[in-house]
């Protein structure tokens, strides 16, 4: 087992720890555990970044050097990393830690799936000829930052729907720490915009790559089609907001549907045949 894989499996527990403290913060309605959670998350993130670089280095030591973005294991690790990075930025910008309770589980689950699922190979393997391209890094990075932004939008949408239950009056410490619905709605929109632009860039870089590898920029392969479906769903969500004026609950629901499409694009399609068989 590579030492990077060891570190990744430990990070799973670190992120779980951060999640537990975020949850404590919500349940107790006090900021103390939240600060601990942020500290733990930061530690995990630094180790995570280090381990990704280490894995990159390890692959060169094995003589098959390539960016650690080449299979399902590495993509899950990067997905989790992107979520934590975006989340840390959101926490810093909004000065609110309650998002952590809803976002860290995604980072934790992705790491747990990568590290502990028996079907996922954590070995560093050489690149297949089809993946040997300068487009690998830009395609994977843009796609997964898009997925991560949609993941955060999903968490924020859940918070929005939960916050609506808070009709005031009763003492609900679990909900009081969640920011006002207006702020959630704004953040949701921002994350959707970032995700949408990143997904667009991901699809475009994928098309350019497909053109240079197979001679067609679009071939209706299941992964391409699924990403187009995701793109269409978020395009509808943005239009319904910017032109028709849908806000709040409707946007949140569209966002949750959109994230379901993201998961289908990422995982579901692997059960069908197609050219993205890297994820086997």
């Amino acid at each position, binding site marked *: 087992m590579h030492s990077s894989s060891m570190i990744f499996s430990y990070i799973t527990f670190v992120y779980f720890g951060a999640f537990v403290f975020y949850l404590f913060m919500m349940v107790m309605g006090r900021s103390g555990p939240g600060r601990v959670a942020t500290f733990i998350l930061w530690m995990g993130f630094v180790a995570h970044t280090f381990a990704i670089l280490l894995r990159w280095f390890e692959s060169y030591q094995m003589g098959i050097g390539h960016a650690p973005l080449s299979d399902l294991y590495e993509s899950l690790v990067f997905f989790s990393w992107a979520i934590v990075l975006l989340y840390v930025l959101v926490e810093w910008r909004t000065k609110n830690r309650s998002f952590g309770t809803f976002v860290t589980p995604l980072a934790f689950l992705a790491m747990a799936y990568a590290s502990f699922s028996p079907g996922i190979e954590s070995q560093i393997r050489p690149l297949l000829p089809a993946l040997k391209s300068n487009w690998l890094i830009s395609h994977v990075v843009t796609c997964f930052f898009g997925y991560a932004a949609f993941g955060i939008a999903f968490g924020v949408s859940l918070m929005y729907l939960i916050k609506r239950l808070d009709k005031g009056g009763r003492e609900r410490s679990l909900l009081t720490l969640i920011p006002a619905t207006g702020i959630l709605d704004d953040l949701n929109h921002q994350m959707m915009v970032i995700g949408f632009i990143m997904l667009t860039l991901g699809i*475009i870089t994928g098309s350019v790559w497909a053109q*240079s590898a197979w001679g067609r920029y679009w071939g*209706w392969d299941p992964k391409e089609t699924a990403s187009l479906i995701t793109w269409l769903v978020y395009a509808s969500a943005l239009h319904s907001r910017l032109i028709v004026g849908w806000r709040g609950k409707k946007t949140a629901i569209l966002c949750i549907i959109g994230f379901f499409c993201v998961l289908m694009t990422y995982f579901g399609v692997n059960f069908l045949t197609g050219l993205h068989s890297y994820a086997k």
Partner: protein
Amino acid sequence: MAQSNRKSNILWHFFKSVKLTIVLLIILAVLSILGTIIPQKGQGAHEFARTLTPELFHLFKSLNLFDMYHSLWFRLIIGCLALNLIICSLDRLPGTLKLIRTPSRPDRNRPFEDLPEEQLLVVQENRKEAPDRVAGLLRKRYRAVQEKQAGENHFFYVTKGGYSRFGFYFVHLSILIILAGALVGSFSGFEAYMEIVEGEKRDTAVLRDGMGSIKLGFDVQLDKFSLDVYDNGMPREYRSDLTFIIDGRFVKKQSVIVNDPAVFMGISFYQSSYGSVPSKDVRIRIRRPDSPQGFITREVARGGVYPMADDDGEFQVLDIRTDLMRMGPAVLIAVRKNEKEIMRFWVFQNWEVAKERLPGPMAQSLMFNPSAFKPYTFILDKLETRKYTVLQVNRDPGVPIVWIGCFLMVAGFFVTFFMFHRRIWIRVTLKERATEIAVAGTSNKNQVALQNELKHLTQELKNLMATMERRHA
């Protein structure tokens, strides 16, 4: 007149609606899901079709569901979306132009209603030069400053980022450009493939849609195909070394690997697949223990019939494989055993290895036993293979158009989402014993950034008034 005619047109109304856009986007999404579930073309589609009842199959077939992305109705829906984009954009364009071109009257008081205190500053003195100084400051920060005086009030109006309202037109235009590029590709391009055996050349490619083949106008020769593997057996690189030949003259040599195609006379060649075929000379030995020479040798070809030794009948070579069940080269031999019975059996080149790897019952079976026809033992003595490459051969003049569309789309997103049109009004009121400056603004989005800008501007005006004060003192 023409205007009102157009506006009352039902079709125009139908196609300008954003709700139609959303409905079309969702229909396309649902259809794409359908297209992923129903296998499109190829092997999967054939297997899926077999599971359907004949009626259902005919329904699917007539609706083109096995190739729906190329069906007329799917293209019609895309056409509707394009029309929707065009009409929706045209419908909104005059309004946007008006918003940007026609200046707002600077002397409006409504923006100043309910002004927060921090956007208001008052100096307890009449400063006659204040309007000029404010105008100077604004001219430094904004391109066009409009002024108007009304009694004791001096109004200024500035605007920035008006072009950002065009962002979504660019995005819509980019989608149309991409669709146009796809259309150009489907009308004036082709997708084909060609198989070339090492050392041979070809001048035609087979079209992917099964509509025959296409003459390239030059020859493509495969000098060498090489497959490189990693230590663990995974493929590292597939490479075809090609030579392009026009009228028998060697014009260009180029290697094609995956992700790095060759382009010759506007036609692109991509490494797609590879394989091997038996070369012409295949040699079989037949051993007979009691024969004086020990064995006889026959050069054979597929389908050929050859005599066994000493008028002892004949054998036929039914098939020649370069790699049977991943156990290397093998030939299928048929021998007439007696009047009624014909024996058939495979002869592997490397029988020892094959015997090890075949599952027990198969290794015992006569089907794979080279000594099945007693007393002879067949030996595949020589079978040379020649590699061939499969190249994807494309011409698609629409590709650059698609890339232009993609670039425009990303640029359009940045303008639409990250830039905004703000309009700012400043009112300088010269009272008898005081000067009052009010700053107000509106923005089509990103209110936070607008508030920051107003705060900044107010601060600068404050500094300006302070310097004037010092000079006065």
